[in-house]
Protein backbone atom coordinates (compact mmCIF):
# COMPACT_ATOMS: atom_id res chain seq x y z
CA UNK A 1 0.00 0.00 0.00
CA UNK A 2 1.37 3.39 -0.87
CA UNK A 3 0.97 6.56 1.12
CA UNK A 4 -1.96 7.79 -0.95
CA UNK A 5 -3.94 4.62 -0.33
CA UNK A 6 -3.23 4.60 3.40
CA UNK A 7 -4.21 8.23 3.76
CA UNK A 8 -7.36 7.83 1.71
CA UNK A 9 -8.58 4.85 3.70
CA UNK A 10 -7.69 6.20 7.12
CA UNK A 11 -9.13 9.60 6.34
CA UNK A 12 -12.36 7.98 5.20
CA UNK A 13 -12.72 6.39 8.63
CA UNK A 14 -11.55 9.46 10.45
CA UNK A 15 -14.14 11.48 8.59
CA UNK A 16 -16.98 9.19 9.68
CA UNK A 17 -15.74 9.35 13.22
CA UNK A 18 -15.54 13.11 13.14
CA UNK A 19 -19.02 13.51 11.71
CA UNK A 20 -20.34 11.36 14.53
CA UNK A 21 -18.35 13.33 17.10
CA UNK A 22 -19.61 16.66 15.80
CA UNK A 23 -23.19 15.44 15.81
CA UNK A 24 -22.80 14.23 19.37
CA UNK A 25 -21.21 17.42 20.60
CA UNK A 26 -23.70 19.76 18.96
CA UNK A 27 -26.93 17.85 19.52
CA UNK A 28 -26.28 16.24 22.89
CA UNK A 29 -26.65 19.39 25.03
CA UNK A 30 -30.07 19.98 23.50
CA UNK A 31 -31.11 16.41 24.10
CA UNK A 32 -29.81 16.54 27.67
CA UNK A 33 -31.74 19.74 28.30
CA UNK A 34 -34.92 18.11 27.05
CA UNK A 35 -34.43 14.92 29.07
CA UNK A 36 -33.75 16.77 32.29
CA UNK A 37 -36.73 19.03 31.83
CA UNK A 38 -39.18 16.11 31.93
CA UNK A 39 -37.63 14.20 34.85
CA UNK A 40 -38.61 14.77 38.46
CA UNK A 41 -35.72 16.27 40.38
CA UNK A 42 -35.63 13.44 42.95
CA UNK A 43 -35.00 10.94 40.17
CA UNK A 44 -32.23 13.13 38.80
CA UNK A 45 -30.51 13.20 42.19
CA UNK A 46 -30.72 9.42 42.45
CA UNK A 47 -29.43 8.70 38.99
CA UNK A 48 -27.68 11.65 37.32
CA UNK A 49 -26.27 9.53 34.51
CA UNK A 50 -29.53 8.33 32.98
CA UNK A 51 -30.02 9.35 29.38
CA UNK A 52 -33.50 8.05 28.73
CA UNK A 53 -36.67 8.91 30.55
CA UNK A 54 -38.74 6.01 31.75
CA UNK A 55 -42.40 6.39 30.88
CA UNK A 56 -43.25 6.09 34.54
CA UNK A 57 -41.18 9.07 35.63
CA UNK A 58 -42.13 11.36 32.77
CA UNK A 59 -43.48 14.63 34.14
CA UNK A 60 -44.57 17.99 32.82
CA UNK A 61 -44.85 19.53 36.26
CA UNK A 62 -41.65 21.47 35.59
CA UNK A 63 -43.23 23.17 32.59
CA UNK A 64 -46.38 23.89 34.55
CA UNK A 65 -44.33 25.59 37.23
CA UNK A 66 -42.33 27.65 34.77
CA UNK A 67 -45.31 28.80 32.74
CA UNK A 68 -47.80 29.48 35.54
CA UNK A 69 -48.27 33.11 36.50
CA UNK A 70 -46.36 34.36 39.54
CA UNK A 71 -49.64 34.98 41.38
CA UNK A 72 -50.35 31.27 41.16
CA UNK A 73 -46.94 30.35 42.50
CA UNK A 74 -45.30 29.81 39.11
CA UNK A 75 -42.51 31.66 37.39
CA UNK A 76 -44.61 33.67 34.96
CA UNK A 77 -42.88 32.63 31.77
CA UNK A 78 -46.04 33.08 29.70
CA UNK A 79 -45.76 36.82 30.26
CA UNK A 80 -42.04 36.72 29.45
CA UNK A 81 -42.74 34.90 26.19
CA UNK A 82 -45.24 37.54 25.18
CA UNK A 83 -42.83 40.35 26.06
CA UNK A 84 -39.94 38.74 24.20
CA UNK A 85 -42.13 38.11 21.18
CA UNK A 86 -43.44 41.66 21.01
CA UNK A 87 -40.01 43.22 21.55
CA UNK A 88 -38.31 40.98 19.01
CA UNK A 89 -41.03 41.51 16.40
CA UNK A 90 -41.03 45.27 16.85
CA UNK A 91 -37.25 45.44 16.65
CA UNK A 92 -37.25 43.27 13.51
CA UNK A 93 -39.88 45.34 11.71
CA UNK A 94 -38.31 48.68 12.59
CA UNK A 95 -34.88 47.40 11.57
CA UNK A 96 -36.15 46.29 8.18
CA UNK A 97 -37.96 49.57 7.54
CA UNK A 98 -34.73 51.45 8.13
CA UNK A 99 -32.24 48.94 6.74
CA UNK A 100 -33.80 48.16 3.35
CA UNK A 101 -33.59 51.65 1.84
CA UNK A 102 -30.18 52.22 3.39
CA UNK A 103 -28.75 48.96 2.10
CA UNK A 104 -30.21 49.60 -1.33
CA UNK A 105 -28.68 53.05 -1.49
CA UNK A 106 -25.25 51.85 -0.41
CA UNK A 107 -25.23 48.98 -2.89
CA UNK A 108 -26.74 50.73 -5.90
CA UNK A 109 -26.66 54.49 -5.87
CA UNK A 110 -23.64 56.70 -6.28
CA UNK A 111 -23.91 59.53 -3.82
CA UNK A 112 -21.58 61.81 -1.97
CA UNK A 113 -19.93 60.01 0.93
CA UNK A 114 -21.12 56.54 -0.06
CA UNK A 115 -17.86 54.78 0.69
CA UNK A 116 -17.56 56.46 4.06
CA UNK A 117 -21.10 55.48 4.95
CA UNK A 118 -20.37 51.92 3.86
CA UNK A 119 -17.30 51.82 6.08
CA UNK A 120 -19.19 53.35 8.99
CA UNK A 121 -21.80 50.59 8.87
CA UNK A 122 -19.10 47.93 9.00
CA UNK A 123 -17.25 49.68 11.82
CA UNK A 124 -20.31 50.00 14.03
CA UNK A 125 -21.17 46.35 13.37
CA UNK A 126 -17.90 45.42 15.02
CA UNK A 127 -18.11 47.91 17.85
CA UNK A 128 -18.41 46.47 21.36
CA UNK A 129 -21.91 46.62 22.76
CA UNK A 130 -20.50 47.03 26.27
CA UNK A 131 -19.09 50.39 25.16
CA UNK A 132 -22.46 51.45 23.78
CA UNK A 133 -24.22 50.14 26.87
CA UNK A 134 -22.77 52.71 29.28
CA UNK A 135 -24.09 55.92 27.73
CA UNK A 136 -27.38 54.25 26.82
CA UNK A 137 -27.69 53.27 30.46
CA UNK A 138 -26.97 56.86 31.44
CA UNK A 139 -29.34 58.41 28.90
CA UNK A 140 -32.14 56.01 29.66
CA UNK A 141 -31.78 56.54 33.37
CA UNK A 142 -31.97 60.28 32.87
CA UNK A 143 -34.84 60.18 30.41
CA UNK A 144 -36.76 57.73 32.54
CA UNK A 145 -36.70 55.21 29.70
CA UNK A 146 -34.97 52.60 31.80
CA UNK A 147 -37.44 49.82 32.36
CA UNK A 148 -39.50 50.73 29.31
CA UNK A 149 -39.86 48.25 26.51
CA UNK A 150 -39.78 50.99 23.91
CA UNK A 151 -36.28 51.85 25.07
CA UNK A 152 -35.28 48.21 24.78
CA UNK A 153 -36.59 48.01 21.22
CA UNK A 154 -34.55 51.08 20.31
CA UNK A 155 -31.43 49.50 21.76
CA UNK A 156 -32.06 46.24 19.94
CA UNK A 157 -32.11 48.14 16.68
CA UNK A 158 -28.54 49.16 17.42
CA UNK A 159 -27.72 45.45 17.57
CA UNK A 160 -29.58 44.36 14.45
CA UNK A 161 -29.26 47.31 12.10
CA UNK A 162 -25.58 47.13 11.10
CA UNK A 163 -25.63 43.40 10.35
CA UNK A 164 -28.91 43.75 8.46
CA UNK A 165 -27.56 46.51 6.28
CA UNK A 166 -24.46 44.47 5.61
CA UNK A 167 -26.36 41.31 4.61
CA UNK A 168 -28.93 43.14 2.50
CA UNK A 169 -26.28 45.18 0.76
CA UNK A 170 -24.47 42.03 -0.28
CA UNK A 171 -27.65 40.65 -1.68
CA UNK A 172 -28.70 43.77 -3.58
CA UNK A 173 -25.28 43.73 -5.21
CA UNK A 174 -25.99 40.32 -6.74
CA UNK A 175 -29.06 41.57 -8.61
CA UNK A 176 -27.88 42.31 -12.15
CA UNK A 177 -27.86 46.02 -12.92
CA UNK A 178 -29.33 45.37 -16.35
CA UNK A 179 -32.61 44.26 -14.80
CA UNK A 180 -33.01 47.60 -13.10
CA UNK A 181 -31.81 49.50 -16.14
CA UNK A 182 -34.37 47.93 -18.40
CA UNK A 183 -37.06 48.90 -15.93
CA UNK A 184 -35.70 52.44 -15.93
CA UNK A 185 -35.83 52.52 -19.74
CA UNK A 186 -39.42 51.40 -19.57
CA UNK A 187 -40.00 54.55 -17.56
CA UNK A 188 -40.00 53.34 -13.98
CA UNK A 189 -38.80 55.86 -11.40
CA UNK A 190 -36.33 54.99 -8.65
CA UNK A 191 -39.00 54.07 -6.11
CA UNK A 192 -40.86 52.10 -8.75
CA UNK A 193 -37.72 50.11 -9.52
CA UNK A 194 -37.16 49.37 -5.85
CA UNK A 195 -40.76 48.38 -5.24
CA UNK A 196 -41.36 46.37 -8.41
CA UNK A 197 -37.95 44.91 -9.18
CA UNK A 198 -35.45 44.93 -6.33
CA UNK A 199 -37.71 44.12 -3.41
CA UNK A 200 -39.43 41.12 -5.02
CA UNK A 201 -36.06 39.75 -6.14
CA UNK A 202 -34.58 40.27 -2.69
CA UNK A 203 -37.59 38.81 -0.86
CA UNK A 204 -35.86 35.56 0.24
CA UNK A 205 -32.91 37.49 1.49
CA UNK A 206 -35.09 40.00 3.32
CA UNK A 207 -36.84 37.08 4.95
CA UNK A 208 -33.49 35.67 6.05
CA UNK A 209 -32.45 39.00 7.52
CA UNK A 210 -35.77 39.29 9.33
CA UNK A 211 -35.33 35.86 10.89
CA UNK A 212 -31.79 36.66 11.87
CA UNK A 213 -32.85 39.93 13.49
CA UNK A 214 -35.64 38.19 15.33
CA UNK A 215 -33.18 35.66 16.71
CA UNK A 216 -30.73 38.34 17.82
CA UNK A 217 -33.47 40.23 19.63
CA UNK A 218 -35.01 37.12 21.16
CA UNK A 219 -31.64 35.84 22.41
CA UNK A 220 -30.30 39.16 23.65
CA UNK A 221 -29.33 39.30 27.31
CA UNK A 222 -27.01 42.17 28.28
CA UNK A 223 -29.34 45.07 27.53
CA UNK A 224 -32.37 43.33 28.97
CA UNK A 225 -30.37 42.83 32.14
CA UNK A 226 -29.18 46.43 32.26
CA UNK A 227 -32.51 48.06 31.56
CA UNK A 228 -35.22 45.79 32.91
CA UNK A 229 -33.82 44.06 35.93
CA UNK A 230 -35.84 46.16 38.40
CA UNK A 231 -39.10 45.50 36.56
CA UNK A 232 -39.97 41.80 36.88
CA UNK A 233 -43.26 42.13 35.02
CA UNK A 234 -41.39 43.32 31.93
CA UNK A 235 -38.67 40.68 31.82
CA UNK A 236 -37.87 38.93 28.58
CA UNK A 237 -37.51 35.16 28.53
CA UNK A 238 -33.69 35.35 28.54
CA UNK A 239 -33.66 37.67 31.52
CA UNK A 240 -36.40 35.78 33.34
CA UNK A 241 -34.48 32.54 32.97
CA UNK A 242 -31.23 34.09 34.18
CA UNK A 243 -33.03 35.49 37.23
CA UNK A 244 -34.63 32.13 37.82
CA UNK A 245 -31.18 30.59 38.10
CA UNK A 246 -30.21 33.10 40.77
CA UNK A 247 -33.34 32.35 42.76
CA UNK A 248 -33.14 30.12 45.81
CA UNK A 249 -34.21 26.51 45.67
CA UNK A 250 -35.13 26.33 42.04
CA UNK A 251 -34.51 22.75 40.92
CA UNK A 252 -32.27 22.20 37.92
CA UNK A 253 -35.09 20.40 36.14
CA UNK A 254 -37.26 23.51 36.28
CA UNK A 255 -34.32 25.53 35.02
CA UNK A 256 -33.98 23.16 32.08
CA UNK A 257 -37.71 23.44 31.33
CA UNK A 258 -37.24 27.20 31.17
CA UNK A 259 -34.25 26.71 28.85
CA UNK A 260 -36.31 24.51 26.56
CA UNK A 261 -39.01 27.16 26.40
CA UNK A 262 -36.42 29.81 25.55
CA UNK A 263 -34.70 27.65 22.93
CA UNK A 264 -37.63 25.96 21.23
CA UNK A 265 -38.94 28.90 19.16
CA UNK A 266 -35.45 29.62 17.88
CA UNK A 267 -34.67 26.02 16.94
CA UNK A 268 -38.04 25.76 15.27
CA UNK A 269 -37.52 28.95 13.26
CA UNK A 270 -34.04 27.82 12.39
CA UNK A 271 -34.97 24.42 11.02
CA UNK A 272 -37.90 25.92 9.12
CA UNK A 273 -35.59 28.32 7.34
CA UNK A 274 -32.13 26.79 7.58
CA UNK A 275 -31.34 27.06 3.87
CA UNK A 276 -32.44 30.63 3.66
CA UNK A 277 -30.39 31.60 6.68
CA UNK A 278 -27.11 29.97 5.77
CA UNK A 279 -27.22 31.41 2.29
CA UNK A 280 -28.10 34.85 3.57
CA UNK A 281 -25.35 34.82 6.16
CA UNK A 282 -22.56 33.83 3.82
CA UNK A 283 -23.57 35.62 0.64
CA UNK A 284 -20.53 37.61 -0.30
CA UNK A 285 -18.28 35.48 1.88
CA UNK A 286 -16.34 34.16 -1.10
CA UNK A 287 -15.08 37.65 -1.71
CA UNK A 288 -12.89 37.01 1.32
Amino acid at each position, binding site marked *: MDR*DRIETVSLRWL*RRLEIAAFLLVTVFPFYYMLVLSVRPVERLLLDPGALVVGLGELTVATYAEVLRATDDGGQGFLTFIRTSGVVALAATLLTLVVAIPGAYAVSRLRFFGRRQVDFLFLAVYLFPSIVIAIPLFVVFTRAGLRGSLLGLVLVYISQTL*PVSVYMLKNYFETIPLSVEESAAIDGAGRL*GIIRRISLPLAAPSIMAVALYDFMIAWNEFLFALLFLVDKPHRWTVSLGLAQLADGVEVPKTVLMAGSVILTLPIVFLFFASERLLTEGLTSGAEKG
Partner: protein
Amino acid sequence: MTTTTPGTGRSPTRARPASRPRRRPLTLRRRESRAGLALVAPTLLVVIAVIGIPIVWTVVLAFQRVRLATLRRTGLFGEFTLDNIDRVLHTPGFADSLVTTLVYSIGSTAGSIALGLVAALVVRRPFRGRTLVRASMLLPYVAPVVAMTFVWQVMLDPQLGIVNHWGRRLLGWDAPVPFLSQESTALATVIAFEAWRYFPFAFLFLLARLQAVPADLEEAARVDGATPTQRFRHILLPQLMPVIALLGVLRFIMTFNKFDDVYLLTGGAAGTEVVSVRVYQFLTARTDIGAAAAQAVVLAVVLIVFVLIYLRFFARRVP
Protein backbone atom coordinates in the same frame (compact mmCIF):
# COMPACT_ATOMS: atom_id res chain seq x y z
CA MET B 1 -31.96 31.28 -6.29
CA THR B 2 -34.56 33.40 -8.01
CA THR B 3 -34.84 33.62 -11.75
CA THR B 4 -34.37 37.13 -12.93
CA THR B 5 -36.99 38.13 -15.43
CA PRO B 6 -36.42 41.64 -16.67
CA GLY B 7 -39.32 44.12 -16.67
CA THR B 8 -42.23 42.27 -18.19
CA GLY B 9 -42.99 45.03 -20.63
CA ARG B 10 -45.94 46.34 -18.67
CA SER B 11 -45.61 50.08 -18.70
CA PRO B 12 -45.27 51.50 -15.21
CA THR B 13 -48.32 53.27 -13.91
CA ARG B 14 -46.58 56.16 -12.30
CA ALA B 15 -44.22 57.46 -14.95
CA ARG B 16 -42.62 60.82 -14.31
CA PRO B 17 -43.59 63.70 -16.56
CA ALA B 18 -41.06 63.81 -19.36
CA SER B 19 -40.16 67.44 -19.10
CA ARG B 20 -40.49 70.08 -16.46
CA PRO B 21 -41.22 73.44 -17.95
CA ARG B 22 -39.50 75.98 -15.75
CA ARG B 23 -36.63 74.35 -13.87
CA ARG B 24 -33.61 72.85 -15.54
CA PRO B 25 -34.06 69.06 -15.37
CA LEU B 26 -31.61 67.27 -13.10
CA THR B 27 -29.10 65.03 -14.74
CA LEU B 28 -29.51 61.32 -14.11
CA ARG B 29 -26.38 61.38 -12.05
CA ARG B 30 -27.58 64.12 -9.74
CA ARG B 31 -30.95 62.53 -9.41
CA GLU B 32 -29.24 59.29 -8.41
CA SER B 33 -27.12 61.09 -5.87
CA ARG B 34 -30.17 62.74 -4.34
CA ALA B 35 -32.09 59.49 -4.19
CA GLY B 36 -29.10 57.81 -2.59
CA LEU B 37 -28.78 60.41 0.14
CA ALA B 38 -32.51 60.40 0.78
CA LEU B 39 -32.63 56.62 1.10
CA VAL B 40 -29.56 56.28 3.26
CA ALA B 41 -30.47 59.19 5.55
CA PRO B 42 -32.80 57.29 7.92
CA THR B 43 -30.33 54.45 8.35
CA LEU B 44 -27.51 56.87 8.94
CA LEU B 45 -29.52 58.87 11.45
CA VAL B 46 -30.47 55.80 13.44
CA VAL B 47 -26.92 54.47 13.41
CA ILE B 48 -25.58 57.81 14.60
CA ALA B 49 -28.26 58.16 17.26
CA VAL B 50 -28.07 54.70 18.80
CA ILE B 51 -24.42 53.86 18.15
CA GLY B 52 -22.38 56.87 17.09
CA ILE B 53 -23.40 59.27 19.84
CA PRO B 54 -23.12 56.63 22.59
CA ILE B 55 -19.57 55.81 21.52
CA VAL B 56 -18.51 59.45 21.63
CA TRP B 57 -20.34 59.88 24.90
CA THR B 58 -18.51 56.96 26.48
CA VAL B 59 -15.26 58.69 25.71
CA VAL B 60 -16.56 61.90 27.29
CA LEU B 61 -17.75 60.04 30.38
CA ALA B 62 -14.39 58.38 30.76
CA PHE B 63 -12.92 61.79 31.48
CA GLN B 64 -15.59 62.93 33.91
CA ARG B 65 -16.28 62.22 37.52
CA VAL B 66 -19.71 60.64 37.22
CA ARG B 67 -21.63 58.40 39.55
CA LEU B 68 -25.17 57.22 39.18
CA ALA B 69 -26.20 59.28 42.21
CA THR B 70 -24.76 62.51 40.82
CA LEU B 71 -25.94 61.81 37.30
CA ARG B 72 -28.67 64.43 37.25
CA ARG B 73 -26.26 67.19 38.11
CA THR B 74 -23.50 66.42 35.63
CA GLY B 75 -23.78 67.99 32.21
CA LEU B 76 -22.38 66.63 29.00
CA PHE B 77 -19.48 69.03 29.18
CA GLY B 78 -18.76 69.25 32.85
CA GLU B 79 -15.26 69.26 34.30
CA PHE B 80 -12.81 66.95 32.65
CA THR B 81 -10.35 64.88 34.59
CA LEU B 82 -7.82 62.17 33.95
CA ASP B 83 -8.72 60.64 37.27
CA ASN B 84 -10.69 57.68 35.93
CA ILE B 85 -8.08 56.59 33.45
CA ASP B 86 -5.38 56.98 36.06
CA ARG B 87 -7.35 55.04 38.63
CA VAL B 88 -8.22 52.29 36.16
CA LEU B 89 -4.67 51.83 34.95
CA HIS B 90 -3.33 51.63 38.48
CA THR B 91 -5.85 49.24 39.96
CA PRO B 92 -4.12 45.87 40.11
CA GLY B 93 -7.23 43.95 39.00
CA PHE B 94 -7.47 45.72 35.69
CA ALA B 95 -4.19 44.50 34.22
CA ASP B 96 -5.09 40.96 35.25
CA SER B 97 -8.47 41.16 33.64
CA LEU B 98 -6.95 42.57 30.47
CA VAL B 99 -4.62 39.58 30.31
CA THR B 100 -7.54 37.24 30.99
CA THR B 101 -9.50 38.90 28.19
CA LEU B 102 -6.59 38.41 25.85
CA VAL B 103 -6.09 34.73 26.68
CA TYR B 104 -9.82 34.18 26.47
CA SER B 105 -10.12 35.91 23.09
CA ILE B 106 -7.15 34.26 21.45
CA GLY B 107 -8.04 30.82 22.79
CA SER B 108 -11.67 31.06 21.75
CA THR B 109 -10.86 32.47 18.34
CA ALA B 110 -8.28 29.81 17.56
CA GLY B 111 -10.49 27.05 18.95
CA SER B 112 -13.59 28.07 17.03
CA ILE B 113 -11.70 28.42 13.76
CA ALA B 114 -9.93 25.08 14.18
CA LEU B 115 -13.19 23.29 14.97
CA GLY B 116 -14.94 25.10 12.14
CA LEU B 117 -12.23 24.08 9.69
CA VAL B 118 -12.45 20.41 10.63
CA ALA B 119 -16.24 20.56 10.45
CA ALA B 120 -16.16 22.20 7.03
CA LEU B 121 -13.72 19.60 5.71
CA VAL B 122 -15.77 16.63 6.88
CA VAL B 123 -19.11 17.76 5.49
CA ARG B 124 -17.65 19.08 2.30
CA ARG B 125 -18.48 16.08 0.15
CA PRO B 126 -22.06 14.83 -0.08
CA PHE B 127 -23.20 11.91 2.07
CA ARG B 128 -26.54 10.65 3.28
CA GLY B 129 -28.04 13.01 5.83
CA ARG B 130 -25.58 15.77 5.07
CA THR B 131 -28.17 18.54 5.13
CA LEU B 132 -29.32 17.47 8.57
CA VAL B 133 -25.78 17.19 9.90
CA ARG B 134 -24.93 20.60 8.54
CA ALA B 135 -28.01 22.14 10.10
CA SER B 136 -27.33 20.50 13.48
CA MET B 137 -23.82 21.89 13.47
CA LEU B 138 -25.26 25.39 13.41
CA LEU B 139 -27.41 24.83 16.49
CA PRO B 140 -24.94 26.07 19.14
CA TYR B 141 -24.60 29.34 17.28
CA VAL B 142 -28.29 30.14 16.83
CA ALA B 143 -29.55 28.94 20.22
CA PRO B 144 -30.00 31.52 23.01
CA VAL B 145 -26.88 32.11 25.05
CA VAL B 146 -28.71 31.98 28.38
CA ALA B 147 -30.07 28.49 27.72
CA MET B 148 -26.75 27.21 26.41
CA THR B 149 -24.74 28.44 29.37
CA PHE B 150 -27.23 26.81 31.74
CA VAL B 151 -27.06 23.48 29.97
CA TRP B 152 -23.29 23.56 30.22
CA GLN B 153 -23.48 24.50 33.87
CA VAL B 154 -25.78 21.59 34.59
CA MET B 155 -23.74 19.17 32.49
CA LEU B 156 -20.56 20.17 34.32
CA ASP B 157 -22.17 20.33 37.75
CA PRO B 158 -20.11 18.42 40.34
CA GLN B 159 -23.15 16.72 41.91
CA LEU B 160 -25.73 16.08 39.22
CA GLY B 161 -23.74 16.78 36.10
CA ILE B 162 -23.50 14.08 33.49
CA VAL B 163 -19.87 14.85 32.68
CA ASN B 164 -18.69 14.20 36.23
CA HIS B 165 -20.95 11.16 36.52
CA TRP B 166 -19.49 9.45 33.47
CA GLY B 167 -16.04 10.82 34.12
CA ARG B 168 -15.95 9.00 37.43
CA ARG B 169 -17.68 5.91 36.12
CA LEU B 170 -15.73 5.49 32.89
CA LEU B 171 -12.56 7.53 33.15
CA GLY B 172 -11.86 6.77 36.78
CA TRP B 173 -11.79 10.31 38.13
CA ASP B 174 -11.28 10.21 41.90
CA ALA B 175 -13.39 13.22 42.75
CA PRO B 176 -15.89 15.33 40.81
CA VAL B 177 -14.24 18.22 39.00
CA PRO B 178 -15.84 21.63 39.67
CA PHE B 179 -15.01 22.80 36.15
CA LEU B 180 -16.46 26.28 36.41
CA SER B 181 -15.49 27.21 39.95
CA GLN B 182 -11.85 26.24 40.36
CA GLU B 183 -9.06 28.45 39.08
CA SER B 184 -7.21 25.73 37.21
CA THR B 185 -10.10 24.78 34.91
CA ALA B 186 -12.53 27.70 34.79
CA LEU B 187 -10.88 29.76 32.08
CA ALA B 188 -10.20 26.71 29.93
CA THR B 189 -13.82 25.62 30.29
CA VAL B 190 -15.09 29.05 29.31
CA ILE B 191 -12.80 28.99 26.27
CA ALA B 192 -14.08 25.53 25.35
CA PHE B 193 -17.64 26.80 25.62
CA GLU B 194 -16.84 29.74 23.41
CA ALA B 195 -15.13 27.56 20.81
CA TRP B 196 -18.13 25.22 20.86
CA ARG B 197 -20.65 28.02 20.53
CA TYR B 198 -18.93 29.92 17.75
CA PHE B 199 -17.35 27.23 15.59
CA PRO B 200 -20.50 27.20 13.40
CA PHE B 201 -19.74 30.77 12.39
CA ALA B 202 -16.29 29.75 11.09
CA PHE B 203 -17.76 26.56 9.68
CA LEU B 204 -20.29 28.45 7.53
CA PHE B 205 -17.74 30.79 6.02
CA LEU B 206 -15.14 28.09 5.45
CA LEU B 207 -17.64 25.72 3.89
CA ALA B 208 -18.84 28.42 1.51
CA ARG B 209 -15.26 29.08 0.49
CA LEU B 210 -14.39 25.38 0.16
CA GLN B 211 -17.27 24.86 -2.20
CA ALA B 212 -16.02 27.66 -4.39
CA VAL B 213 -12.60 26.01 -4.85
CA PRO B 214 -12.48 24.82 -8.48
CA ALA B 215 -12.58 21.01 -8.69
CA ASP B 216 -9.95 20.79 -11.43
CA LEU B 217 -7.32 22.25 -9.11
CA GLU B 218 -7.56 19.27 -6.83
CA GLU B 219 -8.01 16.92 -9.75
CA ALA B 220 -4.75 18.13 -11.26
CA ALA B 221 -2.93 17.66 -7.96
CA ARG B 222 -4.34 14.14 -7.66
CA VAL B 223 -3.11 13.28 -11.15
CA ASP B 224 0.30 14.58 -10.16
CA GLY B 225 0.27 12.14 -7.27
CA ALA B 226 -0.51 14.37 -4.31
CA THR B 227 -1.93 12.49 -1.34
CA PRO B 228 -5.03 13.79 0.50
CA THR B 229 -3.01 15.55 3.21
CA GLN B 230 -0.72 17.08 0.64
CA ARG B 231 -3.69 18.27 -1.36
CA PHE B 232 -5.08 19.89 1.78
CA ARG B 233 -1.78 21.47 2.69
CA HIS B 234 -0.88 22.82 -0.72
CA ILE B 235 -4.17 23.31 -2.54
CA LEU B 236 -7.00 23.86 -0.10
CA LEU B 237 -5.24 25.66 2.73
CA PRO B 238 -3.81 28.45 0.56
CA GLN B 239 -7.28 28.96 -0.88
CA LEU B 240 -8.76 29.14 2.60
CA MET B 241 -6.11 31.37 4.14
CA PRO B 242 -7.77 34.72 3.36
CA VAL B 243 -11.06 33.52 4.90
CA ILE B 244 -9.24 32.15 7.94
CA ALA B 245 -7.45 35.45 8.38
CA LEU B 246 -10.71 37.37 8.08
CA LEU B 247 -12.41 35.05 10.55
CA GLY B 248 -9.48 35.58 12.89
CA VAL B 249 -10.10 39.33 12.98
CA LEU B 250 -13.86 39.06 13.20
CA ARG B 251 -13.94 36.46 15.95
CA PHE B 252 -11.18 38.18 17.90
CA ILE B 253 -13.02 41.49 17.87
CA MET B 254 -16.30 39.89 18.84
CA THR B 255 -14.88 37.72 21.62
CA PHE B 256 -12.78 40.52 23.02
CA ASN B 257 -15.92 42.40 24.04
CA LYS B 258 -18.09 39.44 24.85
CA PHE B 259 -20.02 39.83 28.04
CA ASP B 260 -22.91 37.36 28.22
CA ASP B 261 -21.03 34.09 27.98
CA VAL B 262 -18.54 34.68 30.77
CA TYR B 263 -21.02 36.50 32.97
CA LEU B 264 -23.54 33.70 32.74
CA LEU B 265 -21.08 30.83 33.07
CA THR B 266 -18.96 31.99 35.98
CA GLY B 267 -20.00 35.55 36.81
CA GLY B 268 -16.34 36.45 36.41
CA ALA B 269 -15.23 34.25 39.31
CA ALA B 270 -12.28 31.84 39.45
CA GLY B 271 -9.94 33.85 37.29
CA THR B 272 -12.33 34.46 34.40
CA GLU B 273 -13.03 38.14 34.96
CA VAL B 274 -12.81 39.64 31.50
CA VAL B 275 -12.90 43.41 31.09
CA SER B 276 -16.49 43.59 29.89
CA VAL B 277 -17.71 41.80 33.02
CA ARG B 278 -15.68 44.22 35.10
CA VAL B 279 -17.21 47.17 33.27
CA TYR B 280 -20.65 45.80 34.02
CA GLN B 281 -19.82 45.46 37.69
CA PHE B 282 -18.52 49.00 37.92
CA LEU B 283 -21.60 50.23 36.13
CA THR B 284 -24.21 48.45 38.23
CA ALA B 285 -22.80 47.24 41.56
CA ARG B 286 -20.51 50.20 42.19
CA THR B 287 -22.50 52.69 40.08
CA ASP B 288 -19.20 54.33 39.17
CA ILE B 289 -20.02 55.37 35.64
CA GLY B 290 -16.80 57.27 35.08
CA ALA B 291 -14.61 54.30 35.95
CA ALA B 292 -16.78 51.95 33.90
CA ALA B 293 -16.52 54.21 30.88
CA ALA B 294 -12.77 54.56 31.34
CA GLN B 295 -12.33 50.80 31.33
CA ALA B 296 -14.53 50.43 28.29
CA VAL B 297 -12.47 53.04 26.47
CA VAL B 298 -9.21 51.34 27.42
CA LEU B 299 -10.72 48.07 26.21
CA ALA B 300 -11.68 49.61 22.88
CA VAL B 301 -8.27 51.22 22.44
CA VAL B 302 -6.44 47.97 23.18
CA LEU B 303 -8.71 46.21 20.71
CA ILE B 304 -8.07 48.76 17.99
CA VAL B 305 -4.31 48.53 18.55
CA PHE B 306 -4.40 44.74 18.29
CA VAL B 307 -6.47 44.78 15.14
CA LEU B 308 -4.15 47.33 13.56
CA ILE B 309 -1.08 45.26 14.41
CA TYR B 310 -2.77 42.18 13.04
CA LEU B 311 -3.81 43.91 9.84
CA ARG B 312 -0.35 45.32 9.32
CA PHE B 313 1.25 41.94 9.90
CA PHE B 314 -1.31 40.14 7.82
CA ALA B 315 -1.43 42.64 4.98
CA ARG B 316 2.28 42.10 4.47
CA ARG B 317 2.10 38.34 4.28
CA VAL B 318 -0.92 37.93 2.06
CA PRO B 319 -1.03 40.43 -0.77
